[in-house]
């Protein structure tokens, strides 16, 4: 008797939960087939720029304001490449170019037609409080100050654990202060770019390490991308504002972050001169400042026409008033492309030319 009752009870519970699930998926199906908001995911570095365009787009047009998620470049790519289904994101922001592996992942999941949009450049600065002396440093010196292992002082082709304690140990012309640098953690796109542009740039000054790139790529990467772990490089979290506040409190410390933060805090901070050139809007734009990186976003072509407004959003993003030399994105700290480059990119983007990645 009780057994029968029990099985009856289980059955009712099962049917109930199934109907609930069906109801829920019904709601979503109805929602998904008529999605009217553009969704974007990806880099927190591109986020401030994409959101500005999204906000203006929402105000100026009949379309809804696009939803921009800040998931980080890698996380964004995973979501973007997961499938062509309508509930996947339409755009993916990236603070570096899409990697071949990510492109392959996209292709494997059926996302074969992707448009790449280069939106501009972002400089990475090494800054300190402007109450301290302005630092004049080379990429090689930054590498020596922050790498986990550096070539031995005697000039032999041998690696030793980083022995430098003071800046002046590296170059007597630098201040005799303790090396103390606040920077982003390894999960950050800024850190990737810093390793790639600054550390690798300094690394390549040693011809024997550079030669290693062809023979043993993983070893080369290990040498050039590893940051020392003896509390000279302090991971300050993803929040660049925090680094800015810590720098004003400690004039001996340096911080690594995006140019837009230096631009906003130029009354208290100064950017170090790297390889003879200080970070300025013009210097980053014409490429004379050594540390700048391109910023991108990617468009899922299969969604154009299915989600209203994508093409119009691209038109707004690549317009002269947004990405142009005096566009509103430059007010937010984006370093614009040249006029010629912008014209060619605009043409590519608006015709949705699919990206081809080969390596």
């Amino acid at each position: 008797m009780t057994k029968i009752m029990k099985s009856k009870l289980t059955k009712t519970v099962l049917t109930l939960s199934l109907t609930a699930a069906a109801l829920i998926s019904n709601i979503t199906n109805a929602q998904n087939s008529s999605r009217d908001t553009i969704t974007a995911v990806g880099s927190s570095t591109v986020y401030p720029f994409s959101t500005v365009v999204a906000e203006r787009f929402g105000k100026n047009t009949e379309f809804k304001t696009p939803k921009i998620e800040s998931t980080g470049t890698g996380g964004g790519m995973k979501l973007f490449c997961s499938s062509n289904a309508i509930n996947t994101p339409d755009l993916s922001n990236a603070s570096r170019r899409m990697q071949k592996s990510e492109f392959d992942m996209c292709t494997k999941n059926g996302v074969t037609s992707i448009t790449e949009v280069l939106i501009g450049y972002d400089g990475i600065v090494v800054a300190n409080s402007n109450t301290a002396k302005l630092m004049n440093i080379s990429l090689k010196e930054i590498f020596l100050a922050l790498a986990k292992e550096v070539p031995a002082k005697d000039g032999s082709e041998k690696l030793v654990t980083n022995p430098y304690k003071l800046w002046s140990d590296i170059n007597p012309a630098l201040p005799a202060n303790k090396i103390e640098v606040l920077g982003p953690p390894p999960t950050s796109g800024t850190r990737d770019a810093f390793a790639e542009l600054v550390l690798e740039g300094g690394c390549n000054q040693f011809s024997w390490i550079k030669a290693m790139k062809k023979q043993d790529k993983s070893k080369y990467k290990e040498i050039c991308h590893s940051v020392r772990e003896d509390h000279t490089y302090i991971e300050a979290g993803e929040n660049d504002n925090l680094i800015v506040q810590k720098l004003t409190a400690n004039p001996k410390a340096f911080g690594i972050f995006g140019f837009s933060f230096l631009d906003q805090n130029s009354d208290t901070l100064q950017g170090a001169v790297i390889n003879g050139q200080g970070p300025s809007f013009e210097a980053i734009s014409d490429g004379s400042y050594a540390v700048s990186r391109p910023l991108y976003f990617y468009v899922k072509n299969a969604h154009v026409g299915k989600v209203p407004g994508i093409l119009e959003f691209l038109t707004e993003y690549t317009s002269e008033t947004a990405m142009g030399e005096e566009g509103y994105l430059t007010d937010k700290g984006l370093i614009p492309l040249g006029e010629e480059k912008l014209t060619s990119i605009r043409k590519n983007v608006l015709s949705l030319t699919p990206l081809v990645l080969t390596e």
Partner: protein
Amino acid sequence: MTNSIKSSTDNTQMNDSIQQKSTVTITEKVTKSLKKRHRKEKRFKIVGLLAVLFGFMLVLTLITDITAKAIPAFHQHWVKIDVDYKSAWLNIDDTAAATQLTNQMQTANYRKVLRNSIYQMFSTGAEKKLTRQDKRQLTKLFSTNAEFTIKDKLIAKPNYINKKIELWVKLDDDVDSYLKEDFPLGEAGLRVSKKQAEWIAKLSTEQRIDSRFNLSFFTASDSREPELAGIKGALTGTLLTMFVTLLLSFPLGVAGAIYLEEFAPKNRWTDIIEININNLAAVPSIVFGLLGLAVIINIFELPRSAPLVGGIVLTLMTLPTIIIASRAAIKAVPPSLREAALGLGASKMQVTFSHVLPQAMPGIITGGIIGIAQALGETAPLLMIGMVAFIVDVPTSILDSATVLPVQIFLWADSPERAFLAKTSAAILVLLTLLLVINITATVLRSKFEKK
């Protein structure tokens, strides 16, 4: 009580008489140790008081610091400009019929009207013609939203066309911060150049600048322009998410606790369930986010960023807390109560719902509030399900895209614009106020149940 004390004193007196000859009497011993024990008690009291004071001071420092930083967010500088609604600038054919005119007004070039009106204001009189550079600097003084203010005004009052109207618009956040930091008039500072400072000084002497209460902080949604950003969207999102969380976690949690405490047989299975619940309470919240992404979004295909999904994920997170607290409250109800009711012939169901539950309610409510307060401050699990996002439209249902207050705080804290610092602190204040409101409601509810 008094009887037993009396008897014990009698006892000591008796003992005294017996041991009168020993050198240290028991009374002396007791009085001696009594002093020591009192001192111990006093010391403990002082330490306890110090701990409370220390905690209180920390909270006070935190709140004063946040409030001090938040104050600039609650007022905003406005400026009065002379807007010239010239039909040529608007690109409107003013001879067209009324219906056509309203259509044209929707798409007219208000940016041009704004810019030309401003240039007109500053290029008259002794000042020379503005250079290209000047024009750029000049337009930067005003909020980008000014053109929409102008648009709305004209659409509301179409007869303004071809007229010159005085209109209050917001100043840009850079100028706003500059004015709030009390720089001497006409001096460059922060992100304001010398020339811009002189223009501001001119506007200020003409009494065209006014500081007003920043109402839009409460009525607007997120924006990338600090002078326009508000918390309405995030606050609505928080309320919707908490609504879902409360609706799911409270009944489920209480039902689970009642079953486990009153009805479930005590055997190995219930032990395993109990251990699991205790473990779940200690699982890092981001794990629940991953679960939400894998199950609720990928399998059940609920929309990303929706308060419904957020609410479900937060329910999973708060359930163990509520169950544990509710079980403790139910356990604390004296067994005599149950036995008396059972003895009078009440069924187990009647005992539980009309005798045990009302007694346990204050404790259950406390547990529920702790759970909800925990959920209120979560960001980590929401990252995985897409609620860490820039969303401008205010959500209207639990299926719309939304973000919540702690996420808004996180996003603002990470913005380069300096004026967002004040906004961040102000949003924290709002979150704390919300928490306070919830706590007060709980206290009131609790005292109501306790009276019964």
